[in-house]
């Protein structure tokens, strides 16, 4: 890593080249800085009117001094000439003698004995981070691997190592799963002690990788490091331990075998459990719903509680209520209805969400239908903030108000939301429309985003700003709003058909390829049309406000207790 820096700097500096035009003589000053043992020395060369940053010139390998000369016979003064050339261009340079040599001889006892890592800055692929950190913590002597250190662990010894070695080298107290606080020793102990062979088993016995899943790769590496060839991750990851089938197999078989209910599916596909588990049932319910719109009878008992009662469960068992605010626009009437409901039902917290809506937190489950009835009366409907579904379309004010707006971004956002609301998707879908490339609605980190420009609309997708941070991919450019809405509908349908349950758009795009998606949604017009038709057909069955239905008495058993013995006791 340090060697790389050393080689790079003179190269960067060379790009500036030398100049011949006359300028006042630069100021030359001797500099000193504290080193590990004594002082580091160097020369600063500063022109009279300096501009830009200071360039630090660190001599390359071997006994080379600050001017670029070496007692081994090099007298080219390359760094000195470089500094003078830069000074003539108005650029300040500092060139130093390396620690332990020449003017900096006192900085360390032996110039060749500085063999400890003191820090590392990584950019891009940071997978070698734990290895560098471990070398740093242990104060490992890196003299044998100095030359290849920058290339990371795989090349540290000159021979590429197994990537699992990176994880194998971590100390036992290194935290692997941040959600559940599971350390490496706990996992390796369980693998050895209980004979675990799969990530699922590690999850079941240690809870590692059982929550957000972002450490799954590390857990796999631990299994690989410990079991060697005995670790055989199945090519197809089963949905859960109830089946040997993966998500894609199940989706294919739903069509091939015309499976139209969860019991039929489990019987036909030889499920190992009598009625599945909390992992497979919601997935199957979604797949059947997406496969047979209008035909499949939604199984509410296979839905997570939030989707079953159309509100978000909170840590104390109360619920939050988020009405839709189309494109983030609201009105005095809506705000009054929200304020009234909050007071009437004594809802403790009202909060503005990141998706430009209002969240009422802490509502009692029994009150939900009545809260919804009041909100409905003011025209407010479910915002699906609880669902693996189309959530929000965030917008900026666009040409309505903004002096930079190029298009009616608010209007387009509302149009998109009116078209796509109610749609069930593999995982949540958040959108945004920005009225100009300044992108105030932050459309380029959304599942689907639109950036308005003078000539029309750039449609983006596959962004993320949660567990992962990722800018969007450009899907294509369209010239009018109708085409933008159509393309988004087609994109959502392709995602609904190909996405695995709980797989966000950016992960789906990574797995199946951005080009494949672009081809089907942008380039193949016939295909786009067919996708759009299927989306519109499915929407026909889902665009009914679930709050209105429940305020009207649907699923009343979900909200009322079976019996109230407190009242009975009081009566006695």
């Amino acid at each position: 890593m340090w060697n790389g820096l050393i080689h790079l700097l003179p190269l960067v500096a060379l790009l500036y080249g030398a100049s011949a035009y006359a300028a006042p003589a630069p100021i030359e000053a001797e500099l000193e800085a504290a080193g590990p043992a004594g002082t580091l020395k160097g020369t600063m060369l500063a022109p009279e009117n300096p501009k830009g940053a200071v360039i630090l010139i660190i001599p390359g390998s071997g006994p080379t001094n600050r001017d670029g000369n070496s007692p081994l016979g090099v007298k080219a003064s390359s760094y000195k000439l470089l500094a003078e050339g830069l000074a003539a261009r108005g650029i300040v340079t500092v060139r130093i003698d390396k620690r332990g040599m020449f003017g900096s001889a006192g900085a360390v006892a032996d110039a060749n004995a500085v063999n400890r890592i003191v820090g590392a800055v990584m950019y891009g692929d940071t997978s070698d981070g734990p290895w560098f950190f471990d070398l740093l913590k242990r104060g490992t002597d890196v003299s044998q691997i100095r030359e290849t250190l920058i290339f990371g662990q795989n090349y540290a010894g000159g021979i590429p190592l197994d990537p699992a070695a990176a994880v194998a080298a971590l100390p036992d107290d290194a935290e692997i799963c941040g959600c559940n606080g599971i350390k490496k020793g706990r996992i390796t102990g369980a693998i050895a002690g209980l004979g675990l062979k799969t990530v699922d088993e590690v999850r079941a016995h240690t809870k590692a990788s059982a929550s957000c899943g972002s450490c799954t790769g590390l857990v796999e590496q631990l299994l690989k490091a410990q079991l060697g060839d005995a670790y055989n991750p199945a090519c197809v990851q089963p949905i859960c331990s109830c089946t040997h089938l993966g998500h894609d197999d199940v989706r294919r078989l739903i069509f091939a075998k015309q499976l139209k209910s969860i019991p039929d599916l489990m019987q036909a596909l030889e499920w190992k459990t009598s009625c599945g588990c909390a992992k497979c049932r919601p997935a199957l319910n979604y797949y059947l719903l997406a496969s047979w719109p209008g035909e499949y009878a939604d199984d509410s008992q296979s839905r997570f509680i939030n989707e079953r009662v159309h509100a978000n469960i909170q840590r104390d068992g109360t619920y939050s209520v988020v009405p839709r605010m189309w494109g983030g626009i609201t009105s005095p009437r809506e705000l009054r209805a929200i304020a009234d409901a909050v007071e009437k039902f004594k809802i403790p917290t009202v909060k503005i969400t990141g998706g430009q809506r209002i969240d009422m937190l802490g509502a009692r489950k029994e009150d939900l239908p009545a809260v919804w009835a009041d909100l409905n009366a003011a025209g407010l409907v479910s915002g699906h903030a609880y669902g693996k579904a189309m959530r929000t379309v965030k917008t900026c004010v666009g040409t309505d108000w903004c002096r930079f707006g190029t298009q009616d971004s608010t209007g387009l956002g509302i149009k998109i939301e009116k078209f796509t609301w109610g749609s069930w998707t593999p995982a949540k879908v958040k959108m945004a429309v920005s009225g100009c490339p300044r992108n105030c609605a932050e459309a380029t980190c959304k599942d689907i985003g639109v950036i308005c420009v003078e000539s029309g609309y750039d449609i983006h997708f596959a962004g993320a700003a949660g567990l992962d941070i990722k800018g969007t991919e450009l899907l294509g450019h369209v010239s009018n709003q109708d085409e933008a809405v159509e393309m988004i509908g087609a994109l959502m349908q392709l995602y609904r058909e190909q996405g695995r349950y709980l797989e966000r758009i950016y992960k789906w795009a990574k797995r199946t390829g951005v080009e494949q998606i672009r081809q089907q949604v942008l380039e193949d017009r016939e295909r786009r049309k067919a996708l759009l038709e299927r989306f519109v057909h499915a929407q026909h069955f889902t665009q009914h406000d679930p709050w209105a239905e429940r305020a009207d008495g649907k699923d009343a058993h979900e909200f009322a207790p079976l019996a109230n013995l407190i009242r009975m006791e009081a009566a006695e």
Partner: protein
Amino acid sequence: MTVMEPFWIDIGKLEDIPVRGARVVKTARGCIAVFRTAGDEVFALNDRCPHKGGPLSQGIVHGRSVTCPLHNWVIALDTGEAQGADKGRVRTVPLKVEAGRLLLDAKAL
């Protein structure tokens, strides 16, 4: 030593609970979750997960287990024991079905 005789009280009928679902019975000592499995077996447990107090009645019922809606602990309905790597136990309450009616032992509340 005398054995406490159960005192059965009628809390509703079997059909009031959705198959693979649960309902809540409110008592002075907190809520009791009453479950009905796919095979029409019924179980009554304290409606509090031993992990963080999550309402088990809101979980997904599968086999003879329920998965807590807050952090996915799996609780066995017959014993109240947490499954897998999790350790903990939920209090169970005797419950039986007679002529389609659900009878809960009030003495055990």
